[in-house]
């Protein structure tokens, strides 16, 4: 099953995606065309969002880093998330803003000290993030710093959450990013340094993960700078296709 969070009649609701993505079924059974949906990021209010830096060896090499020995984890919150077909503001002085297509694992039940072998039992679903970065704003303090990674609207998320059972092995998914139709990232989740199960083991060793928490698992190589007006499409096999437009701030 795919579940989308949309704005409907002035409130956020979770809708079921039906007819192969062409339509949505609202909580009380009514059907609407997907084309008319007002998509919201499929988040649970208050949930924790983890993100990974340098979690694909080829992307680390491209940025001049060695792949890390322990996961490079940072957090995101609040207004940084935006839904499918939303816009992401690009600041006037940003020349080095690039999209990062990422598989997102959504936690389904409390997880504390979970072993790698059991970890995927704690995942209820998957979605897609486009985790933009603006390299001009990087500083070497708690890097990647929030001025780079937690700006308003710079983490498109969605379009929906797909049940984990419908995805199967999260380490065997092709992912791509296209900017104005041109492929700028093409990779596979098989190349993650720390896979979904390893990340859950790592995080749950020192803190309790809760339902709705999300792990943005990092991005493969392909740094491509975008400009206002660009259409950015992040696609992950078996999960979906997240569309976003870059707009003047």
């Amino acid at each position, binding site marked *: 099953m795919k579940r989308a969070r949309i704005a409907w009649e002035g409130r956020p609701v979770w809708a079921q995606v039906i007819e192969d993505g062409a339509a949505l079924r609202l909580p009380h059974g009514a059907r609407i065309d997907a084309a008319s949906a007002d998509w919201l990021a499929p988040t649970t*209010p208050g949930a924790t969002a983890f993100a990974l830096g340098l979690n694909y060896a080829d992307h680390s090499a491209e940025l001049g880093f060695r792949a890390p020995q322990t996961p*490079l984890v940072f*957090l995101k919150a609040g207004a940084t998330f935006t839904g499918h077909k939303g816009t992401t503001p690009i600041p006037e002085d940003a020349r080095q803003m690039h999209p990062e297509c990422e598989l997102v694992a959504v936690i389904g039940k409390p997880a504390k000290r979970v072993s790698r072998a059991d970890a995927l039992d704690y995942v209820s679903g998957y979605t897609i993030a486009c985790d933009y970065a603006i390299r001009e704003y990087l500083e070497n303090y708690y890097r990647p710093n929030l001025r780079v990674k937690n700006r308003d609207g710079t983490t498109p998320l969605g379009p929906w959450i797909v049940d984990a059972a419908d995805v199967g092995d999260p380490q065997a998914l092709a992912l791509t990013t296209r900017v104005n139709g041109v492929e700028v990232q093409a990779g596979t989740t098989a190349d993650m340094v720390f896979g979904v199960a390893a990340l859950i083991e790592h995080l749950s060793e020192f*803190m309790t993960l809760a339902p709705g928490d999300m792990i943005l698992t990092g991005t493969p190589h392909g740094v491509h700078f975008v400009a206002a007006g660009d259409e950015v499409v992040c696609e992950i096999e078996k999960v979906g296709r997240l569309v976003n437009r870059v707009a003047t701030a």
Partner: protein
Amino acid sequence: MISGAAYGVVLNDARQRERLAEAFCAPPYRAPPKAPVLYIKPRNCFRFGGAPVPLPPELAEVEVAATLGLLLARDLAAAEPADVWASVGAMCLAIDVCEPHDSFYRPAVRQRCRDGFLPLGPFTASSPQVGEIITDIDGGEAHRWSLDRLHRPIETLAAEISAFMTLCAGDLLLVGLAGDAPRARAGQTVTVRARGLPSLTTRLEAESEAT
């Protein structure tokens, strides 16, 4: 009352910045910090009403940094310093607990985000007049500091953050940590107090005891 995120800021103590001035110019930093250096305390950290802080056996001691938390009542975006207080709806004392760490290079999620690592006191109406923040450990004064030490005063800090991200209604902003914050061990009781604010007491408990 917190419906959003709790944001904190390191390196906002002028004394600490003075002490680190040389280190800021060496690797891995290579330049002093320009923007406020933020971190996020996720919801598993929050503890209210004096609930104990669980310490895992591998942590012999933790830093207990007393600070002030501001609860946003209105979104603060692209704000001027003079606008900041109008968006603050309440404030509280907080103890930002962390595993001591020297490096500010990578986000300190493991060190800062364990369960219970942000005990919060009762909220009260906000006021720009906050006295010295005093930390007692097992009944004896262990630390005191004044927010006069903040490198960016509250108004400037919140305004500069709001230049690149919205502080949303329901978010909590922790205004800074003393570079010389005290440390405490399992079994110890920590109280934080300041004139005009409800005080906050919590106990650090060896993990098996607390869970």
